[in-house]
């Protein structure tokens, strides 16, 4: 992204910067808590003084997607809510990861009914599934640590620049004679 995408040769200097960037990214994962139902309470509990999540670098649980890199989908996703989740996911800047927390997001959970999406991987690319109903806070912290491991292994070549879209700006028609 940005500066590092210019350094495409695999020299010693660039691989160190690469590793440095990956370490910086993994040590300060800012989660976007998509707290929908009961799992959101366990996510709150993983932020409380007993199961501190800020010692993992995730102190800041911003509720705005523009500043986050990890989306924790916590709670049952219904068909009506799926559009909202997808919209928020699209608003997050790259690179981004998703934890599907709980049984409801992984496979629909105990809700085999007409309004529950049977697994959010039908419309979101999920990285880690945390099992449980709800998963204990330690379980969520384990999922976070696995995401950190995954991020630590990424290198610059995994994040290609987005395809260049040429915006053809139309000249505004300011001529006086309009036909």
């Amino acid at each position, binding site marked *: 992204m940005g500066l590092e995408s210019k350094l495409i040769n695999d020299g010693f200097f660039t691989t160190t910067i690469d590793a440095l960037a990956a370490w910086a990214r993994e040590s300060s994962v800012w989660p976007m808590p998509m707290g929908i139902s009961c799992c959101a309470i366990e996510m709150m509990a993983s932020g409380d003084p007993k199961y501190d999540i800020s010692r993992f670098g995730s102190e800041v649980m911003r509720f705005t997607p523009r500043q986050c890199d990890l989306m924790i989908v916590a709670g049952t996703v219904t*068909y*009506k809510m799926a559009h909202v989740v997808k919209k928020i996911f699209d608003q997050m800047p790259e690179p981004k990861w998703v934890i599907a927390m709980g049984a409801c997001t992984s496979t629909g959970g105990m809700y085999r*009914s*007409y*309004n529950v999406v049977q697994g959010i991987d039908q419309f*979101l690319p999920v990285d880690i599934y945390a099992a449980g109903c709800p998963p204990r806070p330690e379980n969520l912290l384990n999922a976070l640590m696995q995401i950190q491991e995954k991020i630590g292994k990424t290198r610059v070549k995994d994040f290609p620049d987005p395809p260049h879209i040429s915006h053809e700006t139309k000249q505004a028609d300011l001529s006086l004679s309009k036909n």
Partner: protein
Amino acid sequence: MKELLKEKLEKQFTTVQFEFIEQFDELTLKFDKSAIVNICAFLKDEDGLKFNFCEDITAIDWATRKNRFAVVYHIFSMENKFRLCLKVDVDESECSVESVSSIWKAANWAEREAYDMYGITFLNHPDLRRMYMPEEFEYHPLRKEYPLMGIPGAIPLPKK
């Protein structure tokens, strides 16, 4: 309290046929659906009864009976600490009943939910929209013929 209720109702509404059912310490009243608004207004305002709290409004789908739906009202009197259950039968061909939201404002959303889930229209309701399902949804989920897993494609999912 139960005797007082029976006495007052039968004195006031001589044309309405009441059916009193007592089960598990609870009193249920069954009558024809055309009298619902008058009876509810009477129950709310009359001295000694004062049913000022509308707890819940719902409907039962009996599926095979002649009057397919039964609309159930649970009301509570805070003074007398007495709970009463009112039931009216609604047929599928004429799937509507008068709304009591002019008497208790709490009935507003409960009736909207009954409309959403069962398709029973409430006449003179100030704002009859769907409650839980999206507005474009065509079915009524709690009817017995609607499958538990839903009809695939009824609500669209976003693309990956």
